[in-house]
């Protein structure tokens, strides 16, 4: 089991926790476990179509998993996972 760091605006959905224990052999499995444990978090991580929202970035040991193997990226015990949002917008 490992932990995943939750960004400040999403901590109300994880009972205020900054670091949440999660289980899963891949990044995708870890995120499924996270949203199963905290269902109200899901709408802010995923679109209605079930896709990860564009602003959600998952880092594994300081590397963006998009540069690794995306949701299939293997996760091992003691890996450091973080959700770091991109912030964007415009008129």
């Amino acid at each position, binding site marked *: 089991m490992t932990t995943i760091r939750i960004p400040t605006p999403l901590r109300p959905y994880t009972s205020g926790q900054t670091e949440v224990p999660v289980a899963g052999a891949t990044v995708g499995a870890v995120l499924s476990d996270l949203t199963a444990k905290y269902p109200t978090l899901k709408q802010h991580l995923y679109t209605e179509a079930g896709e990860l929202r564009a602003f959600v970035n998952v880092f594994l040991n300081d590397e963006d998993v998009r540069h690794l193997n995306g949701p299939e990226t293997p996760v091992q015990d003691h890996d450091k996972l973080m959700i770091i949002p*991109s*912030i*964007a917008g415009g008129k």
Partner: protein
Amino acid sequence: MLTISAETLKALEAHGESAYPAEGAGLLFGTNNGDGNKTVADILPLANRWEAEEQYHRFLITPPDMLRGEQAAARRGLDVIGVFHSHPDHPAEPSGFDRDWALPFYSYIITTVEKGAATRSRSWLLKEDRSAYDEETIQSIERLTKL
């Protein structure tokens, strides 16, 4: 309610003016006081990382900049409590694009910059169901007690 000193609000608006005609953006550092009230202690202006030719209507704060911002806030005993950005020659109201990228809890200050001059700033909070925003009152005060 979002409380901010007049000096900090002026600095935030000046960043939008300096970015014009592109959108300027940055982070709000401060504290969450509970009951829907937050206090801005400082701002962190950041580079707009969207493609240059689209910056007239788009801004982007990348994850590395976001992480550095969070670490800088934490070193000062503060949190990132929101985001500010400017709308060149456009109302200080969130767009559908703003909403697609918005996160709950953050205060989103939007500043209208008309022909290079900031004219109005408004703050917005994403609704829980992500359907729209609620406007948040900005309380600008002369001086804040040091946080």
